[in-house]
């Protein structure tokens, strides 16, 4: 393939290759604790650290760029697809290293997220990526966070190297099934994504066992309190029939590193295909259970290309839907819910006006109200307005005698939601009819602001007008 040599400056390339990378939503730097050491630059903190917030309100934690936005593929939803006429550039490994090091020292970023279009071939692209990471770790002695994208179709050797150099490795599924993928990404195939995912998953597990840990990724502590949660009966199916990635050509220095200690993640595009929420959330659960993915991200589709197979340009970005999916994802990871409890073939999509947790609760009024002073964790965590943190506080405080509504409020329980579902010392907070329609109406009211902020174009526009002043001031 052609590689146009042009005289772009680092500044030009940064502009082009950050712009091209921004539709990948993952930007977290979480999942690994690593101390700093003399002679090196950087450390890492398991909770992750954000450094700024962009004009779209999304967190900026990592320098998120593409190695190159040249691409041999022609995925319909992608700005960098072969058939688009856009400015194309490719970074030199050294340019990326300098940007990372200098940005990091000024505390702009927590590390690097390096992805790429497919330049010439998957192998060539992955080779460039690995060369950059190796340089960053070994020549520039960078000890901060690195998230690397595995290019589908890249040889196992290079994936193995990448895993040893990075903290997190991701492979984007993009769409939840092979039909949708075939339709929108003719150059890709499902197997080319799922197979390397499986080998990465078993390699992570093997490295964890070798380091004296359990094979499974750490999950929120709250899951220990819950009898049933999607992680409790985990088995990495992949581990049984997949070979582990072994780098033949890695440097000794790199071999001493853990393999992707912050785990693996993926991303799916929302709203470019008719796939339902049920399908998305079921695939999400499967990925957590069988591949032990650390995170699944959703990216509301922004129509960038004119294509008959896709929503037209100007179609509203499905932000509320994306938000609901993230809420559901949290319910899987922190609240002990299973996908099948949230949606069904009869009701395959999330409710627009009410969040998935409230939705579940009002459909199960027969189990409520529950007594805060005695109820088990599994049901208490399902009360709208009670989250993992407040649950933990409730359990600790119970030892010191009866809880009151006042104390619950101070522990961070959101009573305007919770009050319909709990009793404290046998009493409800107000006289409340336990009747579905009444409660739904009240909760919808509580949720309305949130829904508006995603959908109501008038309020939205007023808000941005108001914010314009701010923008002018802050430049």
């Amino acid at each position, binding site marked *: 393939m052609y590689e146009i040599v042009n005289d772009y400056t680092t500044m030009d390339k940064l502009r082009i290759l950050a712009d091209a990378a921004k539709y990948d939503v993952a930007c977290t730097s979480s999942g690994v604790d690593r101390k700093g050491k003399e002679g090196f630059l950087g450390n890492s903190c398991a909770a992750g650290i954000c450094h700024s917030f962009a004009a*779209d*309100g*999304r967190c900026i934690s990592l320098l998120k760029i593409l190695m190159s936005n040249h691409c041999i593929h022609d995925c319909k939803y992608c700005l960098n697809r072969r058939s688009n006429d856009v400015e194309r550039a490719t970074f030199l490994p050294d340019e990326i290293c300098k940007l990372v090091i200098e940005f990091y020292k*000024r*505390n702009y970023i927590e590390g690097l997220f390096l992805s790429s279009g497919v330049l010439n071939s998957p192998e060539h692209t992955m080779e460039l990526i690995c060369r950059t990471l190796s340089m960053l770790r070994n020549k520039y002695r960078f000890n901060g966070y690195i998230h690397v994208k595995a290019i589908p179709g890249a040889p196992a050797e290079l994936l193995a190297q990448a895993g040893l150099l990075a903290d997190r490795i991701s492979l984007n599924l993009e769409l939840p099934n092979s039909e949708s993928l075939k339709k929108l990404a003719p150059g890709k195939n499902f197997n080319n994504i799922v197979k390397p995912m499986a080998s990465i998953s078993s390699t992570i597990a093997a490295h964890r066992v070798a380091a004296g840990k359990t094979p499974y990724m750490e999950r929120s502590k709250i899951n220990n309190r819950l009898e049933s949660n999607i992680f409790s009966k985990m088995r990495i199916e992949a581990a049984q029939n997949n070979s582990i990635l072994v780098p033949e050509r890695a440097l000794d220095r790199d071999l001493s590193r853990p393999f992707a200690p912050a785990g693996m993640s993926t991303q799916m595009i929302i709203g470019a295909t008719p796939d339902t929420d049920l399908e998305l959330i079921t695939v999400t659960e499967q990925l957590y259970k069988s591949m032990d993915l650390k995170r699944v991200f959703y990216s509301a589709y922004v129509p960038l290309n004119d294509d008959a197979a896709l929503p037209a340009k100007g179609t509203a970005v499905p932000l509320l839907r994306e938000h609901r999916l993230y809420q559901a994802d949290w319910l899987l990871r922190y609240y002990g819910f299973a996908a099948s409890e949230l949606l069904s073939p009869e009701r395959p999509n999330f409710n627009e006006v009410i969040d998935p947790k409230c939705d579940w609760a009002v459909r199960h009024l027969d189990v409520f109200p529950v007594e805060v002073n005695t109820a088990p964790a599994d049901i208490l965590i399902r009360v709208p307005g009670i989250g993992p943190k407040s649950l933990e506080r409730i359990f600790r405080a119970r030892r010191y005698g009866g809880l009151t509504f006042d104390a619950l409020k101070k522990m961070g329980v959101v009573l305007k939601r919770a009050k319909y579902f709990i009793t404290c010392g046998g009493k409800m907070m107000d006289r409340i009819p336990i009747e579905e329609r009444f409660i739904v109406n009240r909760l919808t009211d509580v949720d309305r602001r949130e829904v508006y902020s995603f959908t109501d174009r008038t309020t939205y526009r007023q808000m*941005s007008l108001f*914010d314009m002043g701010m923008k002018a001031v802050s*430049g």
Partner: protein
Amino acid sequence: MTVFTCSDSLEAMLTCIYDAWYSRLGHDNVRLEIEPIEQLNMFDTYVHVEADERKAMAVADAVNMKISPAFYGEIVYCLGAYERDVLDTVYRVLVLGFKHGAGVLDAYGYEAVSRFKAIRIRYGREASSFLEFVRFNLVEGVYVAHFEPKSRVLLTVAEHFADRMPSEHWMIIDDIHREAAVHPCNEQYYIRKLSAEEYDRLKATEDYDDSFTELWKVYFKEIAIKERENYRCQLTHFSKWKRKHVTEFA
């Protein structure tokens, strides 16, 4: 009511706790406040307390041994908070701690505990937000950061960067409390109160624009998705008072 008052140094605050406790006036008859006192009440008696190392150590030892080191850690951490009632709240929590043990910090039923927790959470957030938002400028080989926290968080912030950038010369300046954490390459950092003249000289360091400032601004602008523009959300996450000294908003 007798009001014991002191400056905001840790030693003075612990001494103040000591004096109030051993005044034997009864816990309900004393209040502790940090100077300057904003409004004097004519019915109260005010007693100014000077820092005293022996008394401060006595309080530290008692809390460490009779309650727990972790409890002591929590209290000292929280005393950095700017809330006017933090010292008195800590006093009340200590009374409860000596009576019921370290676990009392989970008992939200007590007014003092829930107040303490609220301050602790807010203070913790303030401290960690500056781990995110502090920005360094390269000035003649030294990475220099200015920031303006409401609370005294410099120590927490400096600890973080000492681990992160051990082999760099750097300096973090708290412009409000006029203190600086100074870290020479590969050495232990130290905290230094700034004289007026030092303070003025250090102020000028922000006028340096190094070549990476511009690159960062370009990146910051490019990475936002126009179709998702949401300044309100940006503002909730990154409030205005914290944007001071932040490169991308300068």
